[in-house]
């Protein structure tokens, strides 16, 4: 059995706007090992949610996967016929959405919605489905008596637990969690993340955690994939990537968020400017216009992905000078003058 569950290779996803195709994801590659939580992080509009949705192959009406592969357990789900893809959905690849409130159907009880998945997709009998529902509720720490409640009767955190229970229902190999805790307050965020990590390690499931919050990644993930403007800027083991980032964007991102674990080290420094327009992306490195370390070359040539250490790579022309980048990049002054 392969150590890698999912391997995304040169994925391209575009949106049809008028006659043009705007690429929200433009050649992204990363791996998801078995039993690992991989954080997919970046500012809004960097393409991380598009990647997440592309993995389910349920994308917007005007979106289409224009290239690349998504090798899931050895099969390319980008090329799978719709019927076969549908067999994979939820049984192998489940999804936890950002807002459980909007993603649960308001007119059915939670039990109905669990049953729907368990019976229609899992082929369980009514009795089996009831037992499994109770088991799932116990797993996520909700009293099974509340199965008969409607979504609006749960609090925000509870609803997110319901969403986790739903995702676990059919023992998937991979769960894609799209900003699963963004809408919650910090204390509830921690509870939900703890729960997710506990269940994930217990059941050996792989998780892709999509978030804009690098501190969430630092808190639960085993690996990090940093995306910028539709491409992967840096990827690597969590500890190495957070403590020794090699891409200026990762350094900047780290400066811009408080630490979820409490002690924020130093000031919060935002990265000035906004991600580039994907209609006319910069020709070289896409981060160059906002990068304090950008050279002439960065603006003209697309950087290659440089392997720094085992499993740690960065797409930056200056990744050889990573020590200098880190030293200068942690100074507030560097980012203000950019």
């Amino acid at each position, binding site marked *: 059995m392969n150590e890698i569950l999912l391997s995304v290779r040169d994925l391209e996803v575009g949106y049809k706007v008028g006659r043009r195709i705007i690429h929200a994801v433009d050649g992204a590659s990363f791996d998801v090992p078995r039993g690992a939580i991989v954080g997919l992080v970046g500012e809004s509009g960097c393409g991380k949610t598009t990647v997440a949705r592309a993995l389910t192959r*349920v994308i917007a009406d005007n979106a289409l996967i224009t290239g690349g592969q998504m090798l899931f357990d050895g099969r390319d789900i980008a090329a799978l016929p719709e019927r076969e893809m549908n067999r994979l959905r*939820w049984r192998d690849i489940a999804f936890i959405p950002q807002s459980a409130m909007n*993603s*649960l*159907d308001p*007119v059915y009880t939670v039990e109905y919605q669990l049953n*729907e998945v368990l019976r229609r*997709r899992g082929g369980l009998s009514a009795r089996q489905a009831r037992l499994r529902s109770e088991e799932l509720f116990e797993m996520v720490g909700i009293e099974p008596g509340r199965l008969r409640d409607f979504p609006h009767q749960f609090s925000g955190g509870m609803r997110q637990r319901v969403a986790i229970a739903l995702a676990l229902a059919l023992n998937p190999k991979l769960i894609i969690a799209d900003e699963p805790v963004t809408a919650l307050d910090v204390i509830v965020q921690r509870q939900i993340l703890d729960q997710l990590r506990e269940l994930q390690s217990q059941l050996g499931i792989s998780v892709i955690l999509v978030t804009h919050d690098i501190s969430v990644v630092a808190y639960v993930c085993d690996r990090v994939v940093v995306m910028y403007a539709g491409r992967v800027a840096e990827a690597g083991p969590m500890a190495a990537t957070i403590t020794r980032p090699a891409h200026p964007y990762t350094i900047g991102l780290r400066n811009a968020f408080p630490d979820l674990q409490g002690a924020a080290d130093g000031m919060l420094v935002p990265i000035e400017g906004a991600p580039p327009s994907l209609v006319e992306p910069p020709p070289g490195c896409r981060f160059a216009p906002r990068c304090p370390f950008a050279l002439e070359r960065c603006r003209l040539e697309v950087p290659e992905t440089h392997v720094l250490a085992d499993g740690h790579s960065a797409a930056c022309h200056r990744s050889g000078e990573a020590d200098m980048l880190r030293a200068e990049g942690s100074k507030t002054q560097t980012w203000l003058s950019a």
Partner: protein
Amino acid sequence: MYQLKAAVGRTLQLGLVLWAVVTILFLMFRLMPGNPMAAYIDPTFTEEQQLALMAQFGLDKPLWEQYFIYLANLVQGELGQSFRYREPVAERILALLPNTLILTFTSLIIAYVFGVLAGAYLAWRRGSAVEQAAIPVVLTTRAMPEFWLGMVLLAIFSFWLGWFPAGGTRSAGTDHGSLLGLYTSSDFLSHLALPALTLAIYSQGLPLLLMRSNMLDVMKEDFVTMARIKGLSNWTVVVRHAARNALLPVMTSFAIAVGYQLQGNVVVESVFSWPGLGRELVNAVSASDYPLAQGAFLMIAIVVILMNLIADLLYALLDPRVTHV
């Protein structure tokens, strides 16, 4: 507990509306030009009848006292004597009410079943040629005078093709024994067909357009996307999730539509000589049969207000967000 309070509050509010409508009616019929007694007393009544009615409605008393007598009589269902039929207005109206309700509900059920299905279909086929063509057609049916549609159907299906009778509820000389016997007879149904079709064609636009626009909104909801990510079948996604949610406001609009339909009935009943409340109102007004006109109007108003109330309660019943707080 909260819902009960809201329901009681709404009922009281509509009770007040009913009281206001009753009062407006009282003022209209008393303040009209001419003899104020004309509201209840026809000059051709015998002297004893006149005196009895004077006493019953306190017509010799001051206006405010008449008002309270009027209210007291109303509460007891006493609406006076019809000039033309020489029988109590309440009896006459209660006898006509079933005809009107049968026509209304038959046509509305047809309209809603068709409208909901067609609306969901058009939402699903959004942007297609079928949809592009259908929307103006539906808008046109809303722009038709209902009685004119009735006339055209009558001219074609009754006078030209001879498939359906031209009016009334039964053929001359037929007797079905009981009311139930009448309503279940094929003779009655063939009389019902054209007026019900007329009203149904006019009414289907509302549920259709409502269902379509609701479906388009609901299809954009996260839970519909999630249902697809769950790998549920297209049918389950569209019918059990999208349509089920879109249906909610359409169902409540049914009760409101009953109220509106009663107004449309006035003209359509006249075209098809359908012995219902609407035609009775028109005939009573034409014949200056004031007590009957007043009674028929009141009955229609009561049904309209009652249906508004039912719409509210129905919404609470169908939407778990309201029922299960």
